[in-house]
Every structure is written in C-alpha cells, then in structure tokens.
C-alpha cells in the first residue's frame, strides 16, 4: 500500500510538471488568440484545432494510417537492412572502411531531396519511394549504432571466448549480438521519430494525396488552418506513438539487464 502510494507520488511528480506546462501553454495560446483577436487564417486557437480534430477524426486517422504505414514499413525495412549490413561490415573490415565514410557523408546530407529522384525511379503513384526514403534514413541510424555495438565488446569477453577455443560464429552469437542489442534499441529510439518525420517530408514532393503531409499543406494552402493544424496534431500523435513504442521496446529489453 505504502509502496503504491510512493510510486504514485513519484509518478505524479514526474508527469505533473509536464501536464501543468502543457495546460499553461495551451491556455496562453487560447488566450492570446482571443485577446489579440487573431484571425483564424493567421493563428487558430487550440480549441478550434481540437474541434476540427474531433470532427475530422476518421479522415485524420485514415491519413495517419497511410503515413504511419509508410513510416512503419520503412522503419522495419531500414532496421533489418541496417542490422544485416552491420553484420557484414563487422565481418569484413575493408567494406567497413568503404561504407562508413559514405554513411557518415550521407547522414550529413539533406537526403530528402532524393525523394524527387526516387519518385521518378519508382513511379510517383507508388508508396515505394516514400518507404525507401524512410528506410534509407533509418538504415544509416541503425547501421552506425549496431555496428558500434558489434565491435565495441569488452576485450575481456573476447579473450574469455578465445580461451574457450570458441569460433568466430560462436563469439558473434554469444558476445557480439547480445552486446549490440541495447545499441539497436537506442538507435530505434532515434530512428522511430525520424521515420515519421521522413514519411511526411516525402509527401512534400508529390505522390498520392492520402497522407498527413499532403493534407496539412493542402489545408493550409486553402486557409483552412484549423483543419491543417488538426492534421498536425495527428502528426504529433503519430510521432509520439512511434517514439513511445521505441521507448517501451527499450524498456522491455532493459529488463533483465544491467543499468
């Protein structure tokens, strides 16, 4: 009982400031819109956005499903590819030396400009370019992290395995892979929100008009700001969903592990 009370207290202590801050922020926003009589084409009140969100919920959910599916497919594909590639790279030093600088370079580049190119490669009516785009972004994040996890193993562990006359495969299975798993989850935490954002940005260059990104720009272009921001709210929720999912995954993985 006591313990429950305590954990409830700390939970409240953690969440309450965020709730209070959020409420204050929204309150100020609402007040500012009212007080300065800001016109809806300029800035809409949170209440109007919420109204639109509720009203258009089925549409928003539909659009979020499309963008979310793109993000999810890209996330999964990018993760699988990234993990596979990091295995290959950790095995073949030379490839690593070639791929890593390329990965680092591509990471610094605003790769979303490739969407237009991918659209032309794969057809603009297809969701594939967007998914490839997401996968590409996720791939590099996962690759860099997991490769680090596979190589940064404790030298004591490796020596121990060698003292057992263990093969490279055994070392991979028993030392490197378990060691890389936390790195994978850390990378997912970065990659999950990045996947969602990339999915929106990819819609920016054209293609099917069924995702959140295209709905947002179309509504705002038509001065339907409240509706546009209702979709933005949907986008935030989708991003949060992905982020929370990765945090939960990491938490699950951390159970039964140190720190």
């Amino acid at each position, binding site marked *: 009982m006591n313990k429950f009370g305590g954990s409830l207290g700390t939970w409240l202590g953690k969440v309450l400031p*965020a709730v209070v801050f959020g409420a204050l922020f929204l309150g100020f926003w609402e007040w500012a819109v009212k007080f300065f009589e800001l016109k809806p084409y300029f800035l809409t009140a949170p209440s109007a956005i919420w109204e639109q969100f509720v009203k258009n919920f089925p549409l928003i959910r539909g659009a979020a499903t499309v963008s979310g599916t793109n993000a999810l497919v890209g996330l999964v594909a990018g993760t699988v590819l990234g993990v596979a590639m990091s295995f290959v790279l950790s095995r073949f030093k030379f490839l690593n*030396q070639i791929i890593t600088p390329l990965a680092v370079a591509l990471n610094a*580049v605003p790769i979303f400009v*490739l969407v*237009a190119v991918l659209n032309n490669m794969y057809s603009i009516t297809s969701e594939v370019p967007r998914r490839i785009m997401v996968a590409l972004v996720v791939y590099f994040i996962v690759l860099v992290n997991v490769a680090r996890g596979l190589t940064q193993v404790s030298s004591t562990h490796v020596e121990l395995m060698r003292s057992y006359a263990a093969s490279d495969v055994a070392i991979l299975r028993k030392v490197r892979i378990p060691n890389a798993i936390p790195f994978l989850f850390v990378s997912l935490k970065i990659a999950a929100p990045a996947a969602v*954002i990339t999915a929106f940005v990819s819609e920016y260059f054209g293609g099917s008009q069924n995702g959140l990104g295209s709905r*947002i*720009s179309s509504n705002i272009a038509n001065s339907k700001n409240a509706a546009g921001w209702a979709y933005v709210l949907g986008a935030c929720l989708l991003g949060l969903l992905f982020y929370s999912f990765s945090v939960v995954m990491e938490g699950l993985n951390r159970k039964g592990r140190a720190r």
Partner: protein
Amino acid sequence: MIALARRAAYRTAMFLVALALVVVIWETYKALGPVDGGKLLGVRILPRTSEYAMPHVWDMFSRFGRPEVRGSDRTVFASVLSGAWFSFRLSVAGFVLGGVIGVGLAVVMARFKLVQRGVLPYLVVSQTVPLIALAPLVVSWGGKLEVGPLVWPRWLSASVLGAFLAFFPIAVGTLRGLAAAPAASVELMQSYAASWSKTLVKLKFPTAIPYMVPAFRLGASASVIGVVVAEISTGLKGGIGRLIIEYAREATGDPAKVYTAIFGAAALGLTMAGVVVAVDVFVMRNRPKESIT
C-alpha cells in the same frame, strides 16, 4: 600531427573509392537493369533505368559546365556554388541560433528539474510538427516584427526554421552532457564552496563537450535540412533549396540537371559537418583520445 594528416588523407581516399563504387554500380545497373524496373507482387522494387529515372553520371556532371539559361554566361556550376554558399550562411545562422537556444534550454533544464520535466516531453513533440506547417507561420510572424529600423529579413525565416530543427539534438545532447560530470568532481566544486554558475563554467561545460560535439554535428545537418526545406517552402531566392525546385521543374526536359543541385546540397551538408568536426578537433586537442566518441 603528421599521423592526423595521414589519417585524413586515407579517409579521403577511402571516400573517393566509395564514391567511385557508387558510380560504377549506378552505371552498371543502368546498363543492365530492366528499363521498366523490377516488380515483385505488382510492386516495383527495382528502379527503372530510363533517362528520367537514372540519367548517366556524366550527363549530370556535364550540366555543371553549361550556362544556366541559354545566352547567360553564368554556368550551372557558378549557380550551384553560389546557392550552396548562400544556404551555407543561412544554415550557419540557423545553427548558431539553434545552438544558443539549445544550450540555453539545456542549462535551464539542468538547473531546474521542474522545468526539465515540464518542457522536455514537448521538445520531443515539437520535432514531430512538420516544417511545412510552421513555415508560413514563421514567415507571417517574422514579417510583422519590426523593432525600430530593424525589419525581419526574409532569409531569417529560413534560418529560424533551421534553428527549429537544430536546437533539439543540441538541447538533448547538452542536457545529457551537463549531467555527466562525475559526482566526485561535483563534490570537489562543492568543497570549494563554488557557486552554481562557477561550477557550470569550470566543470559542467567542459565535461559536457564530448556529449555536445556529436549533438552539434546532428544539429548542423538538421539546420541544413531546415534551411533547405524552408527555402523551398517560403520561396526564398538564392539558396540551394530554391535551385533544387527550379531545376526540378526542368526535369521534364532535362532530368540530369536537378542532380547538380542535389550534389550542391550534399556538398553543403558535408561542409557543415566538416566545420563541426574541425571545431571538435580543435576543442578536443588537449583531451585524451578515449573521451572523444
């Protein structure tokens, strides 16, 4: 120093090899791949090889030498270069702005746990707001700002959007870094009866630097992305983002040309990252190698 130069040279060489490899793969696929791409279960998973989809690499590079519009003596190369330079300056401005905001936020959050708990979740949320929704707002509001003779120059909107993307990794990285000072060092400062600000300057910032550097690197590329998107979005003229969209409009007639702008964007991103790395090497020159991650 010599070892450093040698390593840099080796890395450059490796990078060039990697690029060459990409070119070879591109051209090989273009030569051998199916013109209409490869489909699996009705979904095209292999790209098409038409001129529209995959122009020849030499076509892309040959465009650099051409005049931008017929009759003008300004080459595409000159345009791309000046566009990249323009966007570079905006990105630097955005990066600096984002850096100041990010570090400032991190310091406040490190100082007041309550602020951290209240604000941090919204920083995550803020990054999921698509730039396209924000761009018109920033432009409109910026246009309204007028302090005496100072008006809001239009490019500042792009830099602000760059800063919007850049501040987040910087704030998070710095926050982590500020918390990274070893307990013993913190106690040491306490034993000197050092004030909070003294502790910040003499201990916390120096220990945070190894965490801040990768954060700044992320921030730098985020700032580039923000600026390029903002240029497209707000129609700001002179930068690489604008060039991308202008050349993209010509893709119907000249699919290779847009790649020159894409290469320009790549060079821009690399330059930004390079600047951060150079600053990193400079700042960390007196630190043990292991602490650089």
